[in-house]
């Protein structure tokens, strides 16, 4: 369809080899329709935030390519050798073969340094892109039904990426990463009951031993990448099968998806995007030195440099270890070291566990069991957005505390003061962030409502005959209207402790859990209501009232949530 209007020059022949091959394949697999509708015409919504996941995907591909190159030269062995290579400052120094081969990659293999640095930058970009992609999905509610499984896969991917990164940068057996590995081993030892066994089995005996480098190597180059590859495949297949979400816009409904077709548009754009990412990483690797292991020296357990920081994605663990006050129990002749266990398990547990739990919590609190293909604007889900920003704050404080010595040094604040600030902010920061964010969201909703009811400020000032100056408001256009009207508000469940006429509590608000649910539901349902009739230049509402409690059951336009009392099982 539509070709004649756009392009009448379809009167060329598809090249014979291509046609022949396609025909040969279709004879055997019969995928003509699937290739057309699922691959060539697959619709890709056009939104900048949809590029974030692609950054992660392409960083991963670049990691596979550069990692394969590195594995041709890297020797995963801690056999001790004396160095007599190109880097003269380390001449005659005893070191492991792993460290020696990394020096060789850096100084004796043409392009080796470049590929090594691209690999390291790509790893950092991979994790950073995963983080931002997950934040996008969280803040827009794109994790909701039917995409919960893909959200969970994403969390597993992220967790694996952390392990992959830690093991990857530990492989060269340099002083900096060796110290990190020692910390990792110390943390393992601290795990109750099985800790020492875990550490001894992983390291093949006491730290550092000779087994850890080859073991990390096979985990880093085979085991984890294999799982990552499989899960990324599943992630993308599910995305194909369920189709993309889309942002609210004119013409976008829960029943369609609008964007550009895969062939040729998305294929060309995403190839360009891949090239840009590869190019940017190559630029970084050329001009921004990363992990110069020759400056750190080979690992020895008796030395350490100050201001040692891990790669950025380990910062939260490092910061948690630093912020934690000393706390250890002697429990029936056994040592339980909360100084280590809490920083190890709690912060990442809260962030990742909380993320995994969230879709189900939100579903429970809102009673919303509908499909969602149109994303939320973050302001229209104040509780979710507030929790998200609180999580960022919590993570950010602990992450920054991971560099408390650098902060203390650069800002001339006493070291212990920095740590105390971090301890306090870890608790208070998220609460403050939640409250502020929620208020900001409601404020933005109020702005949206004004725009919807009274139009937007045109910037035209008019003087009335009696001398009064007014600003002319213009009704918003259809595109904007579609965006503004996309707000959906969770239905109110029966209030906590509410009873019907006979004094019987509502079934869903009974018991501790029911009451908790009703309280959570009240928070989710808080909104700035919009009167539905006559938008654009209407004169409804006094413009200053707030929220949920007073305005029972504000079914905003297009709300798909079930009405109260109908929140039964599916």
């Amino acid at each position, binding site marked *: *369809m*539509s*070709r004649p209007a*756009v392009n009448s020059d*379809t009167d060329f022949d598809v090249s014979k080899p291509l046609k022949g091959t396609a025909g040969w394949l279709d004879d055997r697999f019969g995928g003509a329709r699937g290739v057309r509708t699922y691959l060539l*015409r697959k*619709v890709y919504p*056009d939104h*900048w935030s949809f590029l974030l996941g692609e950054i992660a995907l392409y960083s991963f591909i670049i990691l596979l390519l550069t990692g394969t190159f590195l594995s041709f030269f890297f020797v995963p062995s801690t056999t001790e050798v004396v160095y007599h290579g190109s*880097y003269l400052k380390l001449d005659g120094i005893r070191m492991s073969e792993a460290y020696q081969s990394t020096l060789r990659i850096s*100084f004796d293999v*043409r*392009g080796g340094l*470049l590929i090594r640095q691209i690999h390291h930058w790509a790893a950092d970009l991979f994790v950073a892109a995963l983080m931002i992609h997950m934040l996008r999905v969280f803040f827009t509610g794109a994790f909701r039904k039917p995409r919960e499984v893909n959200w969970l896969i994403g969390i597993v991917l992220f967790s694996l990426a952390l392990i992959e990164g830690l093991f990857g940068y530990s492989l060269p057996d340099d002083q900096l990463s060796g*110290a990190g590995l*020692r*910390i990792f081993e110390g943390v393992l*030892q601290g795990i109750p009951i099985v*800790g*020492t066994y875990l550490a*001894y089995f992983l390291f*093949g*005996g006491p*730290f*550092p031993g000779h087994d850890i480098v080859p073991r990390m190597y096979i985990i880093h180059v085979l085991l984890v990448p294999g799982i990552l590859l499989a899960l990324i495949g599943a992630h993308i297949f599910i995305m194909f099968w*369920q189709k993309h979400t889309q*942002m609210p816009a004119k013409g976008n409904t829960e029943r*369609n998806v*609008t964007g*550009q077709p895969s062939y*040729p548009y998305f294929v*060309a*754009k995403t*190839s*360009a*995007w891949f090239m*840009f990412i*590869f190019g940017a990483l*190559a*630029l970084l690797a*050329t*001009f921004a030195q990363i992990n110069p292991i020759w400056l750190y020296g080979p*690992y*020895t*357990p*008796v*030395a350490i440099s*100050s201001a*040692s920081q891990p790669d950025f994605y380990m910062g939260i663990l490092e910061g948690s270890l630093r912020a934690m006050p*000393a706390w250890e129990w002697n429990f029936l002749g*056994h*040592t339980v*070291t909360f100084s*280590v266990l809490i*920083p190890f398990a709690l912060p990442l547990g809260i962030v990742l566990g909380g993320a995994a739990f969230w879709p189900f919590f939100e579903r429970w609190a809102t009673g919303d069991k509908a499909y969602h*293909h149109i994303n939320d604007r973050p302001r229209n889900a104040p509780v979710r957005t507030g929790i998200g920003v609180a999580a960022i704050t919590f993570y950010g404080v602990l992450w920054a505390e991971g560099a408390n010595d650098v902060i203390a040094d650069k800002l001339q604040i006493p070291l*212990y003061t920095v740590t105390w600030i971090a301890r306090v902010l870890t608790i208070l920061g998220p609460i403050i962030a939640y409250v502020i964010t929620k208020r900001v969201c409601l404020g933005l909703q109020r702005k949206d409502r004004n725009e919807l009811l009274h139009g937007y400020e045109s910037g035209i000032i008019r003087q009335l005959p009696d001398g009064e100056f007014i600003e002319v408001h213009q009704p918003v*256009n259809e*595109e*904007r209207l579609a965006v503004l009207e996309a707000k959906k508000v969770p239905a109110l469940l029966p209030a906590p402790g509410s009873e019907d006429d006979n004094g019987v509590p509502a079934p869903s608000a009974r018991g501790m859990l029911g009451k908790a649910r009703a309280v959570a539901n009240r928070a989710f349902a808080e909104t700035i209501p919009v009167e539905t009739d006559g938008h654009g230049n209407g004169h409804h509402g006094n413009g200053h009232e707030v929220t949920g409690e007073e305005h029972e059951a504000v079914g905003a336009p297009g709300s798909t949530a079930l009405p109260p009392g109908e929140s039964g099982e599916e």
Partner: protein
Amino acid sequence: MSDMEETEGAEGAGVPAAPHRVIGTPPPSPRLLGSAPVAQEGSETALALVSDEEEFQEHIDGLPPDDPQVTVHGKRAERVVVACFLLTFIAGCGFVAAYVGLGVHTVDKTLRSNLALGLSMSVMFLALGLGALIWVRHLMPNVEVTQQRHDLRSDEKQRQATEAYFKEGTANSQFVKRPLVRRTLMLGTLPLLAAPVVLLRDLGPQPGTSLRHTVWSPGRRLLVQGTNQPITPAQFSAPGSMITIVPDGYEDDQDALTKAAVILIKFRPGELHIPTRHQGSTLVGTMNWTVDNIVAYSKICTHVGCPVALYEQTTHHILCPCHQSTFEATTGATVIFGPAARPLPQLPLTTDAQGYLVSKSDFTEPVGPSFWERG
């Protein structure tokens, strides 16, 4: 690229004042004058032979392709794209030339090679990407497709049919009917599941008591790390200094040093006040573990095992650079800040017949991070 900006400007003037574009929504088509999306009719091309129309509706933004403005614009864009691809080719040749022409094997040469290879590689990728992007945005007509979603949920009949078939299959398998078969099957596979875990047993030795001991033993000399020479109290006479000590015979044994590394600190007379304290149930006084106001502490932090490498002479604080656990050196390395929960263990010192510092015994408590069996 100025031609494109012009077009955009022209477009901006043509469109009636509209509210700001929402961040993230696609900008209006940059190259073609804005007009309302036109729903196109089905065509006579091959696609019309089968109908996807129910699922896909296409819209095309902008002017028809034979409009003079589009033709002029297309020619300019084409030149830019071609220039990008030529640049890619040149950069690619440059990359090969740099690989062949520039050697490595010294730091300077490596950096030169890295610069040439990296720069040409970056230009290669960026020019290729830019060319592709301009191609798709300025040469291809702006087609937008709306695709209908299908229900993800199967309809009820399909679900019931699947369930019915599964039930029948289960019945045929006799799985429910013959519990003995079912249970012995489960019993039989249990050891099979344990097998992988069993196979992992030889990954490492059992810890046993190895974490409680180090290689220090009665009479073992203290060697100065680096020079690996023994040291007498007289040679270590400057108060306030700290050095790292390794055990004689294990100077390069990483496994041993991980537990046995020691710091040696010299105090002025009267500065050192190590109180007696409980080790387990026994009260231990350790003032007599020092020689001439020289005290030896484990260098391995009791938090997670970093070397405590920083010593502040004026305050007598030992600081771990990893997580800033701080120990007071004059009172037996007790913790005054940070996550470490226990003092650094003290190594009993004495001198041997030649006057060199030696250990009186091993540490009397485990060094390094806490572990479950530590007690």
